[in-house]
Protein backbone atom coordinates (compact mmCIF):
# COMPACT_ATOMS: atom_id res chain seq x y z
CA UNK A 1 0.00 0.00 0.00
CA UNK A 2 1.14 3.50 -0.77
CA UNK A 3 1.65 6.12 1.87
CA UNK A 4 -0.97 8.42 0.37
CA UNK A 5 -3.43 5.54 0.44
CA UNK A 6 -3.00 5.08 4.15
CA UNK A 7 -3.39 8.79 4.78
CA UNK A 8 -6.51 9.07 2.64
CA UNK A 9 -8.01 6.01 4.36
CA UNK A 10 -7.66 7.90 7.62
CA UNK A 11 -9.23 11.03 6.10
CA UNK A 12 -12.33 9.16 4.95
CA UNK A 13 -12.65 7.43 8.33
CA UNK A 14 -12.41 10.79 10.08
CA UNK A 15 -15.01 12.35 7.79
CA UNK A 16 -17.40 9.51 8.56
CA UNK A 17 -16.71 9.71 12.30
CA UNK A 18 -17.34 13.47 12.17
CA UNK A 19 -20.64 12.94 10.39
CA UNK A 20 -21.78 10.31 12.88
CA UNK A 21 -20.61 12.34 15.88
CA UNK A 22 -22.35 15.54 14.82
CA UNK A 23 -25.66 13.82 14.16
CA UNK A 24 -25.50 11.85 17.39
CA UNK A 25 -25.00 15.13 19.27
CA UNK A 26 -27.85 16.83 17.41
CA UNK A 27 -30.27 13.99 18.11
CA UNK A 28 -29.07 13.80 21.72
CA UNK A 29 -29.99 17.49 22.11
CA UNK A 30 -33.54 16.77 20.94
CA UNK A 31 -33.86 13.65 23.08
CA UNK A 32 -32.53 15.28 26.23
CA UNK A 33 -34.85 18.28 25.75
CA UNK A 34 -37.78 15.95 25.24
CA UNK A 35 -36.72 13.98 28.33
CA UNK A 36 -36.85 17.15 30.44
CA UNK A 37 -40.33 17.81 29.14
CA UNK A 38 -41.60 14.29 29.76
CA UNK A 39 -40.28 14.35 33.32
CA UNK A 40 -42.21 17.49 34.22
CA UNK A 41 -45.36 17.06 32.16
CA UNK A 42 -45.77 13.34 31.59
CA UNK A 43 -45.77 11.46 28.31
CA UNK A 44 -49.31 10.15 27.98
CA UNK A 45 -50.97 13.22 29.48
CA UNK A 46 -49.36 15.54 26.90
CA UNK A 47 -49.82 13.31 23.86
CA UNK A 48 -53.46 12.45 24.61
CA UNK A 49 -54.42 16.00 25.58
CA UNK A 50 -55.82 18.44 23.05
CA UNK A 51 -55.45 21.45 25.30
CA UNK A 52 -52.66 23.81 24.24
CA UNK A 53 -52.22 26.84 26.44
CA UNK A 54 -48.56 27.55 27.21
CA UNK A 55 -49.39 30.41 29.60
CA UNK A 56 -51.40 28.04 31.81
CA UNK A 57 -48.75 25.37 31.14
CA UNK A 58 -51.11 23.05 29.33
CA UNK A 59 -49.00 21.37 26.70
CA UNK A 60 -51.32 18.95 24.91
CA UNK A 61 -49.86 18.20 21.49
CA UNK A 62 -52.56 15.67 20.47
CA UNK A 63 -54.17 18.18 18.14
CA UNK A 64 -50.91 18.74 16.25
CA UNK A 65 -50.21 15.04 15.85
CA UNK A 66 -53.73 14.50 14.51
CA UNK A 67 -53.27 17.54 12.26
CA UNK A 68 -49.96 16.33 10.84
CA UNK A 69 -51.27 12.84 10.12
CA UNK A 70 -54.58 14.08 8.65
CA UNK A 71 -52.97 16.61 6.32
CA UNK A 72 -50.31 14.17 5.13
CA UNK A 73 -52.64 11.24 4.48
CA UNK A 74 -55.22 13.43 2.73
CA UNK A 75 -52.45 14.88 0.57
CA UNK A 76 -51.30 11.36 -0.31
CA UNK A 77 -54.84 10.31 -1.29
CA UNK A 78 -55.18 13.42 -3.46
CA UNK A 79 -51.76 12.89 -5.05
CA UNK A 80 -52.15 9.19 -5.93
CA UNK A 81 -54.34 9.40 -9.08
CA UNK A 82 -52.39 12.24 -10.68
CA UNK A 83 -48.99 10.76 -9.86
CA UNK A 84 -49.84 7.30 -11.14
CA UNK A 85 -51.33 8.79 -14.29
CA UNK A 86 -48.16 10.83 -14.85
CA UNK A 87 -46.11 7.69 -14.23
CA UNK A 88 -48.09 5.73 -16.82
CA UNK A 89 -47.92 8.63 -19.28
CA UNK A 90 -44.16 8.91 -18.88
CA UNK A 91 -43.33 5.21 -19.03
CA UNK A 92 -45.98 3.51 -21.18
CA UNK A 93 -47.59 6.13 -23.40
CA UNK A 94 -44.76 8.47 -24.32
CA UNK A 95 -41.93 6.82 -26.20
CA UNK A 96 -38.20 7.18 -26.63
CA UNK A 97 -36.85 10.71 -26.46
CA UNK A 98 -40.14 12.09 -25.13
CA UNK A 99 -39.77 9.97 -21.99
CA UNK A 100 -36.46 11.63 -21.09
CA UNK A 101 -37.80 15.11 -21.71
CA UNK A 102 -40.84 14.31 -19.61
CA UNK A 103 -38.71 13.18 -16.64
CA UNK A 104 -36.52 16.27 -17.00
CA UNK A 105 -39.62 18.46 -16.98
CA UNK A 106 -40.92 16.84 -13.78
CA UNK A 107 -37.48 17.10 -12.15
CA UNK A 108 -37.66 20.88 -12.50
CA UNK A 109 -40.84 20.85 -10.40
CA UNK A 110 -39.10 18.79 -7.70
CA UNK A 111 -36.65 21.66 -7.36
CA UNK A 112 -39.29 24.40 -7.20
CA UNK A 113 -38.92 25.81 -3.67
CA UNK A 114 -41.73 24.84 -1.30
CA UNK A 115 -42.33 28.48 -0.40
CA UNK A 116 -43.55 28.97 -3.99
CA UNK A 117 -46.09 26.18 -3.53
CA UNK A 118 -47.16 27.98 -0.36
CA UNK A 119 -47.48 31.20 -2.35
CA UNK A 120 -49.65 29.34 -4.87
CA UNK A 121 -51.79 28.05 -1.98
CA UNK A 122 -52.36 31.56 -0.67
CA UNK A 123 -53.04 33.03 -4.08
CA UNK A 124 -55.11 30.29 -5.70
CA UNK A 125 -56.26 27.58 -3.27
CA UNK A 126 -57.32 29.61 -0.22
CA UNK A 127 -59.52 32.08 -2.14
CA UNK A 128 -61.02 29.17 -4.09
CA UNK A 129 -61.94 27.20 -0.96
CA UNK A 130 -63.22 30.39 0.64
CA UNK A 131 -65.64 30.96 -2.22
CA UNK A 132 -66.80 27.35 -2.32
CA UNK A 133 -67.27 26.73 1.40
CA UNK A 134 -67.97 30.21 2.82
CA UNK A 135 -65.29 29.77 5.49
CA UNK A 136 -61.99 31.59 5.84
CA UNK A 137 -60.40 29.20 3.35
CA UNK A 138 -57.51 28.42 5.68
CA UNK A 139 -57.42 24.90 7.02
CA UNK A 140 -56.21 21.30 6.64
CA UNK A 141 -58.04 20.87 3.33
CA UNK A 142 -56.18 23.75 1.67
CA UNK A 143 -52.95 22.51 3.23
CA UNK A 144 -53.42 19.02 1.83
CA UNK A 145 -54.20 20.35 -1.64
CA UNK A 146 -50.97 22.38 -1.61
CA UNK A 147 -49.03 19.45 -0.18
CA UNK A 148 -50.54 17.03 -2.71
CA UNK A 149 -49.38 19.17 -5.61
CA UNK A 150 -46.00 19.54 -3.95
CA UNK A 151 -45.41 15.79 -3.67
CA UNK A 152 -46.79 14.95 -7.12
CA UNK A 153 -43.46 15.54 -8.96
CA UNK A 154 -41.43 13.37 -6.56
CA UNK A 155 -44.10 10.69 -6.39
CA UNK A 156 -44.66 10.54 -10.15
CA UNK A 157 -40.94 10.30 -11.01
CA UNK A 158 -40.51 7.45 -8.53
CA UNK A 159 -43.59 5.59 -9.78
CA UNK A 160 -42.47 6.18 -13.36
CA UNK A 161 -39.22 4.41 -12.49
CA UNK A 162 -41.21 1.67 -10.75
CA UNK A 163 -43.28 1.08 -13.90
CA UNK A 164 -40.15 1.02 -16.02
CA UNK A 165 -38.69 -1.74 -13.87
CA UNK A 166 -41.46 -4.17 -14.88
CA UNK A 167 -39.72 -6.69 -17.18
CA UNK A 168 -40.65 -6.34 -20.84
CA UNK A 169 -41.21 -10.12 -21.02
CA UNK A 170 -44.18 -9.89 -18.61
CA UNK A 171 -45.83 -7.34 -20.89
CA UNK A 172 -45.10 -9.24 -24.09
CA UNK A 173 -46.40 -12.41 -22.47
CA UNK A 174 -49.63 -10.73 -21.49
CA UNK A 175 -50.16 -9.16 -24.92
CA UNK A 176 -49.23 -12.47 -26.54
CA UNK A 177 -51.97 -14.23 -24.58
CA UNK A 178 -54.46 -11.81 -26.10
CA UNK A 179 -54.89 -9.28 -23.28
CA UNK A 180 -55.58 -5.72 -24.40
CA UNK A 181 -53.24 -2.88 -23.47
CA UNK A 182 -55.63 -1.83 -20.71
CA UNK A 183 -55.91 -5.32 -19.26
CA UNK A 184 -52.12 -5.63 -19.31
CA UNK A 185 -51.77 -2.33 -17.49
CA UNK A 186 -54.31 -3.09 -14.75
CA UNK A 187 -53.56 -6.78 -14.22
CA UNK A 188 -49.87 -7.14 -15.01
CA UNK A 189 -47.90 -3.89 -14.98
CA UNK A 190 -49.42 -2.11 -11.98
CA UNK A 191 -49.47 -5.19 -9.70
CA UNK A 192 -45.90 -6.05 -10.69
CA UNK A 193 -44.76 -2.50 -9.89
CA UNK A 194 -46.73 -2.30 -6.65
CA UNK A 195 -43.92 -2.80 -4.10
CA UNK A 196 -41.89 0.02 -5.67
CA UNK A 197 -44.95 2.25 -5.95
CA UNK A 198 -45.69 1.73 -2.25
CA UNK A 199 -42.10 2.71 -1.51
CA UNK A 200 -42.52 5.81 -3.68
CA UNK A 201 -45.67 6.68 -1.74
CA UNK A 202 -43.79 6.38 1.56
CA UNK A 203 -41.04 8.70 0.32
CA UNK A 204 -43.75 11.16 -0.73
CA UNK A 205 -45.39 10.84 2.71
CA UNK A 206 -42.08 11.57 4.41
CA UNK A 207 -41.67 14.70 2.30
CA UNK A 208 -45.20 15.81 3.11
CA UNK A 209 -44.93 15.16 6.82
CA UNK A 210 -41.74 17.18 7.07
CA UNK A 211 -42.99 20.13 5.03
CA UNK A 212 -43.23 23.24 7.13
CA UNK A 213 -43.42 26.46 5.22
CA UNK A 214 -45.96 25.62 2.50
CA UNK A 215 -48.33 24.14 5.09
CA UNK A 216 -47.85 26.97 7.54
CA UNK A 217 -48.86 29.54 4.93
CA UNK A 218 -52.29 28.02 4.30
CA UNK A 219 -53.33 26.05 7.38
CA UNK A 220 -54.38 29.04 9.48
CA UNK A 221 -52.55 28.30 12.72
CA UNK A 222 -55.35 27.65 15.22
CA UNK A 223 -54.15 25.33 17.97
CA UNK A 224 -57.20 23.08 17.96
CA UNK A 225 -58.22 20.92 15.02
CA UNK A 226 -62.00 20.94 14.56
CA UNK A 227 -62.73 20.22 10.90
CA UNK A 228 -61.02 20.12 7.54
CA UNK A 229 -62.27 23.59 6.67
CA UNK A 230 -61.29 25.44 9.82
CA UNK A 231 -57.80 26.63 10.75
CA UNK A 232 -55.63 24.08 12.52
CA UNK A 233 -51.95 23.30 13.05
CA UNK A 234 -49.48 20.51 12.47
CA UNK A 235 -46.36 19.55 14.42
CA UNK A 236 -44.07 21.37 12.01
CA UNK A 237 -46.13 24.55 11.70
CA UNK A 238 -46.53 24.79 15.48
CA UNK A 239 -42.76 24.42 15.86
CA UNK A 240 -42.34 27.32 13.44
CA UNK A 241 -44.87 29.64 15.07
CA UNK A 242 -44.02 28.86 18.70
CA UNK A 243 -40.25 29.06 18.57
CA UNK A 244 -40.28 32.85 19.15
CA UNK A 245 -43.08 32.55 21.75
CA UNK A 246 -41.27 29.92 23.80
CA UNK A 247 -37.62 31.04 23.70
CA UNK A 248 -34.82 29.09 25.35
CA UNK A 249 -35.07 29.30 29.13
CA UNK A 250 -38.84 29.69 29.30
CA UNK A 251 -40.34 26.70 31.18
CA UNK A 252 -42.29 25.47 28.17
CA UNK A 253 -39.40 25.56 25.72
CA UNK A 254 -38.73 21.84 25.93
CA UNK A 255 -42.15 21.01 24.49
CA UNK A 256 -40.63 22.05 21.16
CA UNK A 257 -37.97 19.36 21.57
CA UNK A 258 -40.74 16.91 22.41
CA UNK A 259 -42.57 17.80 19.20
CA UNK A 260 -39.33 17.49 17.21
CA UNK A 261 -38.81 14.06 18.77
CA UNK A 262 -42.28 13.05 17.62
CA UNK A 263 -41.43 14.05 14.06
CA UNK A 264 -38.20 12.06 14.33
CA UNK A 265 -40.15 9.02 15.53
CA UNK A 266 -42.72 9.32 12.73
CA UNK A 267 -39.93 9.58 10.14
CA UNK A 268 -38.19 6.54 11.60
CA UNK A 269 -41.44 4.57 11.32
CA UNK A 270 -41.82 5.60 7.66
CA UNK A 271 -38.25 4.58 6.83
CA UNK A 272 -38.69 1.30 8.71
CA UNK A 273 -41.85 0.62 6.70
CA UNK A 274 -39.94 1.34 3.47
CA UNK A 275 -37.36 -1.31 4.37
CA UNK A 276 -39.99 -3.81 5.51
CA UNK A 277 -42.09 -3.48 2.36
CA UNK A 278 -39.09 -3.59 0.08
CA UNK A 279 -38.11 -6.95 1.48
CA UNK A 280 -41.48 -8.56 0.84
CA UNK A 281 -41.75 -8.04 -2.90
CA UNK A 282 -39.38 -8.04 -5.84
Amino acid sequence: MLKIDKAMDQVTYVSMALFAAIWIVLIAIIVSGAWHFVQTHGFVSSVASFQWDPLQSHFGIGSFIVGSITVTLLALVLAIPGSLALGVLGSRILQGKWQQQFVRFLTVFVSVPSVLYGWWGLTVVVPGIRRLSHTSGYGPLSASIVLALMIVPTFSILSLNALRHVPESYIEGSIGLGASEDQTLWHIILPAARPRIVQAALIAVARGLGETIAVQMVIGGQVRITSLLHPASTLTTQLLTDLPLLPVGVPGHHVLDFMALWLLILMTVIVWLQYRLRGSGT
Partner: protein
Amino acid sequence: MITRGSQRGKMLKPTAQGRVGHFMLAGIALLTLTLLLSVIIPLIVQGAPWLNLAFVFRRPQELGSGGVGPEIVNTVVMVGITQFISLPLALLNAIYRVEYDHGSQFARWFDPGLQILLSLPTMIIGLIVVDVAIAHWHWPVSVGSGIVALSIINWPFSIALMVQVLRQIPDSWREASWALGASRWQTIIRLILPVAGADIIEQTGVAVARLMGETAALIYTAGLNVGKKFSLTAPGETLAVHLWYVRTEGLTAHADQEAAATGLVLLILVLMVLWGSQKMAQWMKA
Protein backbone atom coordinates in the same frame (compact mmCIF):
# COMPACT_ATOMS: atom_id res chain seq x y z
CA MET B 1 -49.97 2.54 -27.06
CA ILE B 2 -51.01 5.89 -28.41
CA THR B 3 -47.86 6.93 -30.21
CA ARG B 4 -47.96 3.80 -32.31
CA GLY B 5 -50.46 5.71 -34.44
CA SER B 6 -47.55 7.35 -36.20
CA GLN B 7 -46.24 3.99 -37.30
CA ARG B 8 -49.56 2.73 -38.63
CA GLY B 9 -48.10 1.81 -41.98
CA LYS B 10 -45.77 -0.73 -40.47
CA MET B 11 -47.84 -2.26 -37.70
CA LEU B 12 -51.28 -3.65 -37.19
CA LYS B 13 -53.58 -0.93 -35.97
CA PRO B 14 -54.33 -1.65 -32.30
CA THR B 15 -57.98 -1.57 -31.35
CA ALA B 16 -59.04 1.63 -29.63
CA GLN B 17 -61.35 -0.51 -27.51
CA GLY B 18 -58.54 -1.94 -25.40
CA ARG B 19 -56.93 1.42 -24.68
CA VAL B 20 -59.71 3.49 -23.14
CA GLY B 21 -57.98 3.27 -19.76
CA HIS B 22 -54.77 4.64 -21.26
CA PHE B 23 -56.64 7.61 -22.71
CA MET B 24 -58.30 8.31 -19.37
CA LEU B 25 -54.98 8.15 -17.53
CA ALA B 26 -53.40 10.45 -20.11
CA GLY B 27 -56.28 12.87 -19.46
CA ILE B 28 -55.73 12.80 -15.71
CA ALA B 29 -51.99 13.26 -16.28
CA LEU B 30 -52.55 16.30 -18.49
CA LEU B 31 -54.87 17.76 -15.86
CA THR B 32 -52.16 17.29 -13.21
CA LEU B 33 -49.58 18.89 -15.48
CA THR B 34 -51.91 21.86 -15.93
CA LEU B 35 -52.19 22.17 -12.16
CA LEU B 36 -48.40 22.10 -11.81
CA LEU B 37 -48.09 24.83 -14.44
CA SER B 38 -50.76 26.80 -12.57
CA VAL B 39 -48.19 27.26 -9.81
CA ILE B 40 -45.81 29.07 -12.12
CA ILE B 41 -48.11 30.99 -14.45
CA PRO B 42 -49.82 33.23 -11.81
CA LEU B 43 -46.35 33.88 -10.42
CA ILE B 44 -45.23 35.22 -13.79
CA VAL B 45 -48.47 37.14 -14.38
CA GLN B 46 -48.34 38.89 -11.00
CA GLY B 47 -44.59 39.18 -10.62
CA ALA B 48 -43.33 40.11 -14.08
CA PRO B 49 -44.81 43.67 -14.23
CA TRP B 50 -43.17 44.44 -10.88
CA LEU B 51 -39.81 43.06 -11.93
CA ASN B 52 -37.23 45.57 -13.12
CA LEU B 53 -33.59 46.38 -12.56
CA ALA B 54 -34.35 48.64 -9.61
CA PHE B 55 -36.20 45.81 -7.89
CA VAL B 56 -33.31 43.42 -8.41
CA PHE B 57 -30.59 45.78 -7.19
CA ARG B 58 -32.13 48.07 -4.59
CA ARG B 59 -32.39 47.52 -0.86
CA PRO B 60 -35.70 46.51 0.72
CA GLN B 61 -37.60 49.30 2.46
CA GLU B 62 -39.91 49.21 5.44
CA LEU B 63 -42.81 50.71 3.53
CA GLY B 64 -42.45 48.49 0.50
CA SER B 65 -41.45 49.53 -3.00
CA GLY B 66 -37.89 48.46 -2.19
CA GLY B 67 -35.80 45.88 -3.96
CA VAL B 68 -34.30 42.53 -3.12
CA GLY B 69 -30.62 43.22 -3.90
CA PRO B 70 -29.17 42.20 -0.52
CA GLU B 71 -31.44 39.16 -0.40
CA ILE B 72 -30.01 37.90 -3.68
CA VAL B 73 -26.46 38.42 -2.39
CA ASN B 74 -27.31 36.64 0.88
CA THR B 75 -28.92 33.69 -0.90
CA VAL B 76 -26.02 33.20 -3.29
CA VAL B 77 -23.24 33.69 -0.73
CA MET B 78 -24.85 31.56 1.98
CA VAL B 79 -25.56 28.68 -0.38
CA GLY B 80 -22.08 29.00 -1.90
CA ILE B 81 -20.27 28.87 1.44
CA THR B 82 -22.53 26.03 2.56
CA GLN B 83 -21.57 23.97 -0.48
CA PHE B 84 -17.92 24.84 0.08
CA ILE B 85 -18.17 23.38 3.61
CA SER B 86 -20.44 20.41 3.14
CA LEU B 87 -19.72 19.16 -0.38
CA PRO B 88 -16.10 17.98 0.20
CA LEU B 89 -17.16 16.31 3.45
CA ALA B 90 -20.13 14.66 1.75
CA LEU B 91 -17.90 13.46 -1.08
CA LEU B 92 -15.47 11.88 1.40
CA ASN B 93 -18.40 10.23 3.21
CA ALA B 94 -19.78 8.89 -0.05
CA ILE B 95 -16.34 7.60 -1.07
CA TYR B 96 -16.13 5.78 2.24
CA ARG B 97 -19.61 4.32 1.82
CA VAL B 98 -19.22 3.20 -1.81
CA GLU B 99 -15.51 2.54 -2.29
CA TYR B 100 -14.48 1.27 1.12
CA ASP B 101 -17.44 -0.27 2.85
CA HIS B 102 -19.15 -3.18 1.15
CA GLY B 103 -22.14 -4.35 3.10
CA SER B 104 -20.65 -4.42 6.56
CA GLN B 105 -22.59 -4.03 9.77
CA PHE B 106 -21.90 -0.31 9.53
CA ALA B 107 -23.61 0.01 6.13
CA ARG B 108 -26.69 -1.74 7.45
CA TRP B 109 -27.08 1.07 9.98
CA PHE B 110 -25.84 3.88 7.78
CA ASP B 111 -28.29 3.53 4.89
CA PRO B 112 -31.57 3.68 6.86
CA GLY B 113 -30.06 6.30 9.17
CA LEU B 114 -29.23 8.51 6.19
CA GLN B 115 -32.75 7.99 4.88
CA ILE B 116 -34.19 9.24 8.19
CA LEU B 117 -31.90 12.29 8.23
CA LEU B 118 -32.90 13.07 4.64
CA SER B 119 -36.59 13.21 5.50
CA LEU B 120 -36.10 15.07 8.77
CA PRO B 121 -38.03 18.38 8.72
CA THR B 122 -35.53 21.21 8.27
CA MET B 123 -37.40 23.10 10.98
CA ILE B 124 -35.84 20.72 13.51
CA ILE B 125 -32.36 21.80 12.40
CA GLY B 126 -33.45 25.40 12.80
CA LEU B 127 -34.65 24.61 16.32
CA ILE B 128 -31.35 22.96 17.27
CA VAL B 129 -29.25 25.80 15.85
CA VAL B 130 -31.36 28.31 17.81
CA ASP B 131 -31.04 26.16 20.95
CA VAL B 132 -27.30 25.72 20.76
CA ALA B 133 -25.65 28.42 18.65
CA ILE B 134 -27.91 31.38 19.28
CA ALA B 135 -29.17 30.78 22.83
CA HIS B 136 -26.20 28.95 24.31
CA TRP B 137 -23.18 30.33 22.47
CA HIS B 138 -24.81 33.76 21.99
CA TRP B 139 -24.22 33.91 18.26
CA PRO B 140 -26.19 36.69 16.58
CA VAL B 141 -29.13 35.86 14.31
CA SER B 142 -26.97 36.17 11.25
CA VAL B 143 -25.59 34.91 7.99
CA GLY B 144 -23.12 32.75 9.95
CA SER B 145 -25.81 30.93 11.93
CA GLY B 146 -27.76 30.46 8.71
CA ILE B 147 -24.73 28.88 7.04
CA VAL B 148 -24.37 26.46 9.96
CA ALA B 149 -28.02 25.44 9.64
CA LEU B 150 -27.77 25.07 5.86
CA SER B 151 -24.57 23.01 6.11
CA ILE B 152 -26.20 20.57 8.52
CA ILE B 153 -29.23 20.27 6.24
CA ASN B 154 -27.15 19.84 3.11
CA TRP B 155 -24.68 17.29 4.46
CA PRO B 156 -26.86 14.15 4.40
CA PHE B 157 -28.58 15.32 1.22
CA SER B 158 -25.26 15.69 -0.60
CA ILE B 159 -24.06 12.32 0.70
CA ALA B 160 -27.15 10.65 -0.75
CA LEU B 161 -26.62 12.37 -4.11
CA MET B 162 -22.91 11.52 -4.24
CA VAL B 163 -23.50 7.89 -3.22
CA GLN B 164 -25.96 7.66 -6.09
CA VAL B 165 -23.39 9.12 -8.51
CA LEU B 166 -20.56 6.80 -7.40
CA ARG B 167 -22.80 3.72 -7.54
CA GLN B 168 -23.46 4.34 -11.24
CA ILE B 169 -19.85 3.48 -12.05
CA PRO B 170 -19.67 -0.24 -12.83
CA ASP B 171 -17.64 -2.37 -10.43
CA SER B 172 -15.83 -3.98 -13.35
CA TRP B 173 -14.03 -0.67 -14.03
CA ARG B 174 -12.71 -0.61 -10.48
CA GLU B 175 -11.66 -4.24 -10.73
CA ALA B 176 -9.85 -3.54 -14.00
CA SER B 177 -7.99 -0.68 -12.36
CA TRP B 178 -7.00 -2.78 -9.35
CA ALA B 179 -5.94 -5.62 -11.62
CA LEU B 180 -3.61 -3.24 -13.46
CA GLY B 181 -1.90 -2.59 -10.15
CA ALA B 182 -3.50 0.71 -9.13
CA SER B 183 -4.04 1.14 -5.44
CA ARG B 184 -7.48 1.94 -4.06
CA TRP B 185 -6.80 5.66 -3.76
CA GLN B 186 -5.15 5.84 -7.20
CA THR B 187 -8.32 4.24 -8.58
CA ILE B 188 -10.45 6.85 -6.86
CA ILE B 189 -8.35 9.83 -7.99
CA ARG B 190 -7.53 8.71 -11.52
CA LEU B 191 -10.65 6.78 -12.46
CA ILE B 192 -13.66 7.29 -10.21
CA LEU B 193 -13.59 11.06 -9.71
CA PRO B 194 -12.86 12.00 -13.36
CA VAL B 195 -15.60 9.65 -14.56
CA ALA B 196 -18.05 10.91 -11.95
CA GLY B 197 -17.07 14.58 -12.32
CA ALA B 198 -19.85 15.62 -14.66
CA ASP B 199 -22.53 13.91 -12.58
CA ILE B 200 -21.12 15.39 -9.38
CA ILE B 201 -21.51 18.87 -10.85
CA GLU B 202 -25.04 18.15 -12.04
CA GLN B 203 -26.13 16.77 -8.66
CA THR B 204 -24.49 19.69 -6.85
CA GLY B 205 -26.77 21.89 -8.93
CA VAL B 206 -29.74 19.98 -7.50
CA ALA B 207 -28.43 20.46 -3.96
CA VAL B 208 -27.85 24.19 -4.55
CA ALA B 209 -31.37 24.59 -5.95
CA ARG B 210 -32.80 22.88 -2.88
CA LEU B 211 -30.84 25.08 -0.47
CA MET B 212 -31.91 28.26 -2.27
CA GLY B 213 -35.53 27.41 -1.52
CA GLU B 214 -34.89 26.60 2.14
CA THR B 215 -37.07 28.72 4.38
CA ALA B 216 -38.16 27.14 7.65
CA ALA B 217 -34.69 26.60 9.09
CA LEU B 218 -33.51 30.11 8.19
CA ILE B 219 -36.30 32.26 9.64
CA TYR B 220 -34.90 32.21 13.19
CA THR B 221 -31.26 31.55 12.37
CA ALA B 222 -30.54 34.00 9.54
CA GLY B 223 -33.33 36.41 10.40
CA LEU B 224 -36.00 38.47 8.72
CA ASN B 225 -34.03 41.57 7.76
CA VAL B 226 -30.75 42.48 6.15
CA GLY B 227 -27.73 44.26 7.54
CA LYS B 228 -26.48 47.61 6.23
CA LYS B 229 -23.53 45.86 4.67
CA PHE B 230 -22.97 42.19 3.98
CA SER B 231 -21.05 40.45 6.77
CA LEU B 232 -21.10 37.07 8.45
CA THR B 233 -22.48 38.55 11.66
CA ALA B 234 -25.15 40.71 10.03
CA PRO B 235 -28.72 39.43 9.69
CA GLY B 236 -29.09 37.58 6.42
CA GLU B 237 -32.57 37.29 5.00
CA THR B 238 -32.68 35.11 1.89
CA LEU B 239 -35.05 35.39 -1.06
CA ALA B 240 -37.25 32.51 0.11
CA VAL B 241 -37.55 33.96 3.61
CA HIS B 242 -38.29 37.40 2.16
CA LEU B 243 -41.08 35.94 0.04
CA TRP B 244 -42.56 34.16 3.06
CA TYR B 245 -42.33 37.25 5.23
CA VAL B 246 -43.79 39.67 2.70
CA ARG B 247 -46.63 37.35 1.72
CA THR B 248 -47.69 36.34 5.24
CA GLU B 249 -46.80 39.36 7.40
CA GLY B 250 -46.27 42.13 4.88
CA LEU B 251 -48.36 45.24 5.52
CA THR B 252 -47.52 47.32 2.49
CA ALA B 253 -49.96 48.12 -0.26
CA HIS B 254 -48.04 46.20 -2.88
CA ALA B 255 -47.13 43.20 -0.72
CA ASP B 256 -48.71 40.75 -3.15
CA GLN B 257 -46.87 41.97 -6.23
CA GLU B 258 -43.64 42.30 -4.28
CA ALA B 259 -43.97 38.69 -3.06
CA ALA B 260 -44.73 37.45 -6.57
CA ALA B 261 -41.76 39.33 -8.01
CA THR B 262 -39.49 37.95 -5.27
CA GLY B 263 -40.78 34.46 -6.04
CA LEU B 264 -40.07 35.00 -9.71
CA VAL B 265 -36.48 36.09 -8.98
CA LEU B 266 -36.05 32.99 -6.79
CA LEU B 267 -37.50 30.71 -9.46
CA ILE B 268 -35.27 32.22 -12.14
CA LEU B 269 -32.21 31.75 -9.92
CA VAL B 270 -33.13 28.10 -9.24
CA LEU B 271 -33.73 27.39 -12.92
CA MET B 272 -30.46 29.11 -13.84
CA VAL B 273 -28.57 26.91 -11.39
CA LEU B 274 -30.24 23.72 -12.67
CA TRP B 275 -29.73 24.69 -16.30
CA GLY B 276 -26.15 25.85 -15.75
CA SER B 277 -25.09 22.71 -13.90
CA GLN B 278 -26.69 20.52 -16.56
CA LYS B 279 -24.96 22.38 -19.38
CA MET B 280 -21.64 22.21 -17.56
CA ALA B 281 -22.07 18.47 -17.04
CA GLN B 282 -22.89 17.98 -20.72
CA TRP B 283 -19.87 20.04 -21.70
CA MET B 284 -17.62 17.94 -19.46
CA LYS B 285 -18.99 14.69 -20.84
CA ALA B 286 -18.45 15.78 -24.43
